[in-house]
């Protein structure tokens, strides 16, 4: 399971289960994916050296898309953090009274 080329490049010797029916497969390493965006991201991360111009463009678009989704996630996560922090603070304050 050696993996020295960087993150997002996890490459086990074999993919278990039944990858034959996977909707998308990497044509370089055979890794199966459920969604096309993950295949696109995987290609850019794991095989950056031999991408066609079209694939590079796809990767950039998928990456920008992901960035926007992460942005939304961060807002929700921040909300949850505030809730945990002030929730506990309030409970402590109420008990101290």
């Amino acid at each position, binding site marked *: 399971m050696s993996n020295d080329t960087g993150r997002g490049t*996890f490459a086990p010797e074999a993919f278990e*289960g039944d990858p034959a029916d996977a909707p998308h497969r990497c044509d370089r390493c055979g890794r199966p*994916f*459920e969604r096309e965006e*993950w295949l696109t991201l995987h290609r850019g991360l*794991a095989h950056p050296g031999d991408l066609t111009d079209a694939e590079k463009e796809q990767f950039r678009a998928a990456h920008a898309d992901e960035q926007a989704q992460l942005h939304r996630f961060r807002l929700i*996560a921040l909300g949850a*953090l505030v809730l945990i922090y002030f929730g*506990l603070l309030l409970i402590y304050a109420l*008990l101290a009274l």
Partner: protein
Amino acid sequence: MQRPDPRRGPFIHRLAAGLVLGAILLAGTAAGHGGSLASGARESIAIPLWLFLATGGGAVGASFLLASFVTDRLLVERLDDWRRAIPVPGERIVVRAMQSLGLIGLGAVIVFGLVGPPEAIANVSVLLVWVGWWSGLAMVAYLVGNPWPALNPWRTIAAVLPSLDRHYPDRLAAWPSVAGLLALVWIEVVSPLADDPRLLALVAIGYTLVTMVGVVLFGADVWFDRVDPVARVFSAYGHVAPLTRAPDGLSLRLPGVGLSRGVATDWSDVAFVVALVWTTTYDGMVATPLGDAIVVPLAEAGLPPVLVYAGGLLVGYALFLLAFWLAVRASQRITSTRLSVRQLAILFAPPLLAIAAGYHLAHYLGYFLNLVPAFVAAMTAPMAAPASVPVLAIPGWFSGIALAAVVLGHLLAIWIAHTVAYDVFPGRLQAIRSQYPLVIVMVVYTMVSLWIVTTPAIDPQYL
């Protein structure tokens, strides 16, 4: 080989990510101080138990959220890959010295166990095993680096023994070490191994004989890598530590990053990690009122207590395995990944070793410091009957360190699992989501651990 550009975030992003990481570590310390205040001031403010546990669980959940803010793949990658080589002058002499020390230690355990004073607290054998080795050396293994491969007296003896090089059945994998670990912990709990130097010496002799037969049959490497539970426990803890053995001396890395790859390769390795986490918990749980509440009725109903403890050990272990398996399967569903549950379990079990290390520290640091003076006194006069045994008084605020250790272990595990998830999943949101079920399990487990660590230990009725 240049990757496409978008992955390189601006410097300010990396700086922000660094600050968040710092905040995670601070949050851990702050939680520790809070805990110490809570335990020191419990009489005056009396924080209810549920709130104390909720705070611990909340700290772990919050640190997962904080870790999820670090979305710069390059930063995650750099923290994981950072290494510094540390040359060791005279490495061969150092190793020889450690090997000799290990042999002397084993000899001392056996000889003074048999002929030393029968009082456990004054006996070198008992103190060397429980204070010096099982507490102190294990702490060195996860806080500094694993010294056991050099110290291991049985490995040193094995080097001069002939080997029949029998083929070790591959399908056994590391399962014997899982059974061995459970058996050792069971023996430790149900027998007076920590009170009876004679018995301890006999167990040491028995363990030596079994190990010698094993290494002669299968060879030392197979035996200590796959079968010997002790060597595997130290090796597992060693992956948490910042120092590791490199071809030319030592290598320094950030704590915990040794868990991010290559630690587990099959189900038996996963089972061993879960067994280590469970046995540290079990060890603490038998001395709580809950432990007795389960054992006493069963024992009064006529079941032999020794078997009740074995049953509890196995049932609890099965529950831990089930919880981990369910979490990993849920993670597989949430991420709609094409990786098997087995592959995901192999990837996400090793980070749990940081939790086991944190829990071990919480459980044993006070015990270790308390008995170090007795250990030193016994070493200087191994045959003397005790007039008075010196011990170190542990101040009350010290329990705060134990709580901090539990929370810090979880924080480290969360960060390493984050690193692994980024390595495995092409989508970063997919990587974050993969951790939801595991974080829920960790939050629950933190609360259980904190409860055990802060519950005053009782003397179990049947031990």
